[in-house]
């Protein structure tokens, strides 16, 4: 999951829902897609939470100084 980004996750989620909406997926595939989709929803929600917790403003010079110390 290290290469997963919000856009790849949300894109995959859209394709899963599209597949489910088509009604062509069998029971086993549907349940597997639902399980995968729930994982993607959790990932995307985590990404959204990460940029919704409040602005964390840093100064580059202070950050560089901290990293070099």
């Amino acid at each position, binding site marked *: 999951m290290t290469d997963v*980004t*919000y*856009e790849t996750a*949300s894109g995959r*989620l*859209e394709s*899963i*829902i599209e597949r*489910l*909406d088509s009604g062509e997926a069998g*029971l086993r595939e*549907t*349940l597997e*897609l*639902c399980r995968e*989709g*729930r994982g993607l*929803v959790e990932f*995307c*929600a985590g*990404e*959204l939470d*990460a*940029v*919704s*917790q*409040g*602005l*964390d*403003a*840093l*100064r*580059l*010079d202070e*950050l*560089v100084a901290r990293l070099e110390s």
Partner: protein
Amino acid sequence: MAVATASAGIPGSALPGPFGVGEYAAALRDRLRGFAHVQLTGEACDVRLTRARVYFELRDERGAVPCAMWREDFDRLGLAPGALAQGAQVVVAGGCDFYPGSSASSPHFSFAVTGLRIAGEGDLLARIERVRRLLVAEGLCEPQKALARPALPRTIGVVCGERGKARDDVLAGLQRRGWAGRLVWAFAPVQDRHAAPAVGRALSELAALPDVDVAIVARGGGSLADLLAFCDETLCRTVALLRVPVIASVGHHTDRTLIDDVAAVSCSTPTHAAEAAVPLHVGAAREALGRGSARLARHGRRAVADRARVLARLSRAPGEHVARHRRELHQDLRELRASARRRVDAEEAATARRAEALARRAAAAAGPLRTSRERRLDGLAAALAAHDPERTLARGYALVEDAEGAPVTDAGAARAAREVRIRFADGAVQATLKDET
């Protein structure tokens, strides 16, 4: 040039002298002043106006020359105040000069300016265009555009002036996106000859931070000269090769600096740059995610429930099939019975009609024989009636019967029976026989 007598030269040196330094400096001044007078063009830096003189450096990519101009000559040009500003592109006319200094003052070289023209924007634009063509030819406008830009960056680096309005505009743009992640401010001068290296250094340091997903370079509007730092070739080459996508917003929408060309995205305002850095609206994305999650859950529930309903329907199907066939069979049976009954009735009626016809035909055929037979039968009946005991009883005789109803026809049987029944024509009586013998 006279050789100084105060000091001896360096032993073994083949060079002439030693000469007095003042004499040498004066000779140097004369030699430099003898250089051909020419026109030079470059960018004015470190402009300093005094009451007597105007000092500045003239620079370009390959070198610099210190310039000096008499103040009264400069004022005679009638330039607008501030026209000879930091970074202004100028053309100067003049020649070399050298102040030989003295025991109390330092010598210095300068280009003595006798004429000066502020180069128009056309000159600047032409120079920028040359660099632009060079960058395009080397393919340096493409690498940034090929970088993947995250839809939802967690960390954004921003290069801007610390007190500029661009800073507030970037914040406003991020707020409009509902974004509140990590922001790394890299404050740098955005106007003067220090700006380009400082901005390049800040961008390089931001790109070196592993968490930074995208960088914004923002600066408000200004003259072309003000924005010249963002046309710096070295800065543009630095930006072109960064691993992090850079979103540039320099000047107003009508301005087009070279950093706009090499950056991943060029925006007209810092607010738009911030919105470009976060393509998603966080709130809208959260709502869309909620809708997607609900649809997933609905599909999950339906996947089982719908199939369960189908299975239930299928499981009922055989029973319903049998029941339907049973109803059809019952119906067939009822119709069969009704049909058979109608058939039997019809056959009975036909048979009756045939029997009646046969009877009629038999009667018609056997009429005489029947009459004689009836007559003989009547005779036999009359003969039989003559022997009927009932007729004897009717004439006044009585019939004695034992308990079983058998006739008692002699005295011995009567004695044996003892209990008899005497039957007359009008009824019977029980009698007990008494033997007198």
